[in-house]
């Protein structure tokens, strides 16, 4: 971490508990522009919870969020979007009963000068974005319910990149996808990286993300085990961090690291 630039996002000492259980305990992670950070850990390690605090879905009990070095006030999803934080949730969070365009623009609809919905303009833009992501996509008029898992995923991704996000959070982005679509998402991540967007990739499967990520941060039982550059560690070492909390030499230990002494 010899990087002297200001991080795009800095989560500092974040804590949240639900009914006495510390879901996230004193966790700190950061992200630089054009960087992909993989957030790894078992199911229930607190990855999704931590990231939901950044995206405004949960309110933190303690800690600080800095965006470009300045404290950010994020209390709900609208606030997060103002800071250019877009999230693709594990559950995709799409409204099944409306079409792709309605989902892409949900909460940020385009309107005509009379204040009514400009459905045609939204559909046009949707066709453009979806054409880039998934050229085979043709079912613009059908409710999202009728689409395949991969197509729904493209809708969720399209929604996140439509509004010029600066920080993108992808929670298990390839969970519902086949190999070909997974490769497409990989390409997309590389492309977004080039544009200077910072990306948090969340996964419990190290193989999904190891090749895409610049750094990994590992969580266990709500605490951060440690951070490492992917070029400094092997997959097995990272697995050791995930399973045992054992921090390899070249990684920076966090509060959740296994005490060897």
């Amino acid at each position, binding site marked *: 971490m010899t990087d002297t630039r200001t991080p795009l996002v800095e989560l500092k000492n974040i804590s949240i508990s639900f009914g006495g259980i510390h879901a996230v305990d004193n966790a700190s992670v950061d992200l630089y522009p054009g960087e992909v950070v993989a957030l790894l850990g078992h199911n229930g390690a607190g990855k999704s919870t931590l990231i939901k605090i950044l*995206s405004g*879905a949960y309110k933190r009990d303690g800690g600080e969020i800095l965006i470009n070095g300045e404290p950010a006030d994020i209390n*709900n*999803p*609208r606030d997060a*979007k103002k800071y250019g934080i877009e*999230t693709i*949730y594990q*559950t*995709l*969070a*799409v*409204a*099944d*009963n*409306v079409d792709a365009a*309605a989902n892409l623009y*949900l*909460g*940020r*609809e385009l*309107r005509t000068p009379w*204040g*009514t*919905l400009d459905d*045609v*303009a939204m*559909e*046009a833009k949707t066709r453009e974005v979806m054409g880039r992501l998934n*050229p085979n996509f*043709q079912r613009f008029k059908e409710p999202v319910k009728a689409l395949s898992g991969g197509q729904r995923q493209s809708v969720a991704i399209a929604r996140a990149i439509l509004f010029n996000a600066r920080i993108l959070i992808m929670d298990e982005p390839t969970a519902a996808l086949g190999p070909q679509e997974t490769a497409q998402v990989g390409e997309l991540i590389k492309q977004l990286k080039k544009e200077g967007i910072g990306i948090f990739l969340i996964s419990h499967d190290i193989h999904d993300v190891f090749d895409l990520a610049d750094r990994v941060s590992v969580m266990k039982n709500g605490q951060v085990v440690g951070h490492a550059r992917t070029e400094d560690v092997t997959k097995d070492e990272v697995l050791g961090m995930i399973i045992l909390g054992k921090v390899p030499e070249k990684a920076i230990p966090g509060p959740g690291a296994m005490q060897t002494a």
Partner: protein
Amino acid sequence: MADITTTAHANRARSAGENPVKRFFRATEIDTRLLGMIGAMLIIWIGFNILSGGLFLTPRNLWNLSVQTASVAVMATGMVLVIVTRNIDLSVGSILGFVGMSMGVLQAELLPQLLGFNHPAIWVITLIAGITLGAAIGALHGSIIAFLNVPSFIVTLGGLLIWRGATWFVTSGRTVAPMDSTFRLMGGGTEGSIGATASWIVGALACIAIVATIINARKQRQRFGFPQRPMWAEYFLTAVGCALVLGAIAVVNSYPWPVAIARKYADANGIAWPEGGLFIPHGIAIPVLIAIVVGIVMTFISTRLRFGRYVFAIGGNREAAELAGIKTRWVTVKIFALMGILCAIAAAISTARLNAATNAQGELDELYTIAAAVIGGTSLAGGMGTIAGAMLGALVMQSLQSGMVLVGIDTPFQRIVVGMVLVVAVWLDTVYRARAK
């Protein structure tokens, strides 16, 4: 370029493989579900017409049917939005009763003391007060549901009892009558109809609106080069729409005033009483006009405004809507406030029609309203429903009831039939939807 030609080719190949009926529905984009409902209603109409010896399909009965449907149809439009968000409102009948009684007392007892009997402003003040009261009650229900997290079933079940009790309390159970003479026009009747000429004008305006809508939709799609309906489909839709509107106007215009009232009118205006009697057509009844306007406004709200989009998104996936930054709680409050306003409008129609406010007004209306919405294709699982469907549902329910009265079926059997029809209709709809998947 290659992409576009292949898709166009694939589309053509797909439509060539379909039978003409399927191609017809695809080209016109007609909702087959709605069409099925219209078909069911026609069967009911023709069936009752045969059973009653030709009494059902007369201008008189159809005109009455339209007036009787108005109040429930108005409330059903709001119930669609409530049910779409996976809520329910059991209190609409009681809100109707309470607001109706309050408006009755206001116009028959309070305002005349202040302004004088039959003052021209009484009806406006009464109506505005009623709508405000309805909105406040609805907003109260909505706030409890949204911010205190009490299920809507319970809140409105409480409301059902509370507002019915309040209706009794206002006048200690006494019926209030008569209503203000201008206010009474909202209930229909010979005076509360707009007459032949005005009805034709309304019909003409409706036809112009249909043509304008279709042209506008076509232009919009042209702007972005989207696929369009074939021209013949556009002409067909325009023709059917205009024919339905003008046909309905022709029906209401062929129902004349009753002889006694026409004679009184002739005497009062110094018109000589002709040999065969005076033929003065009713035209569209004012409550029906109100219901149609409400239907158009509600359709606009639910399909063209952001609020409507949010309502459906919440019904589809509440969590997704919240994560997209929609203030779902406020949307809930607004939905129930809107429902309250519609109850007030329905209360105005029904008190005006009865020319009295009674403490039993609107009893069981909540069930008819919910039934109308559900028969009209609103899914209790949320996320699906149309305003037009719900209004048509209200018309189907009312057709059944009026028809059974005409045929002379006893009251207990009427309820049994209505109950069975509701269950069967929803079952058929479930089957249809399972197939459509």
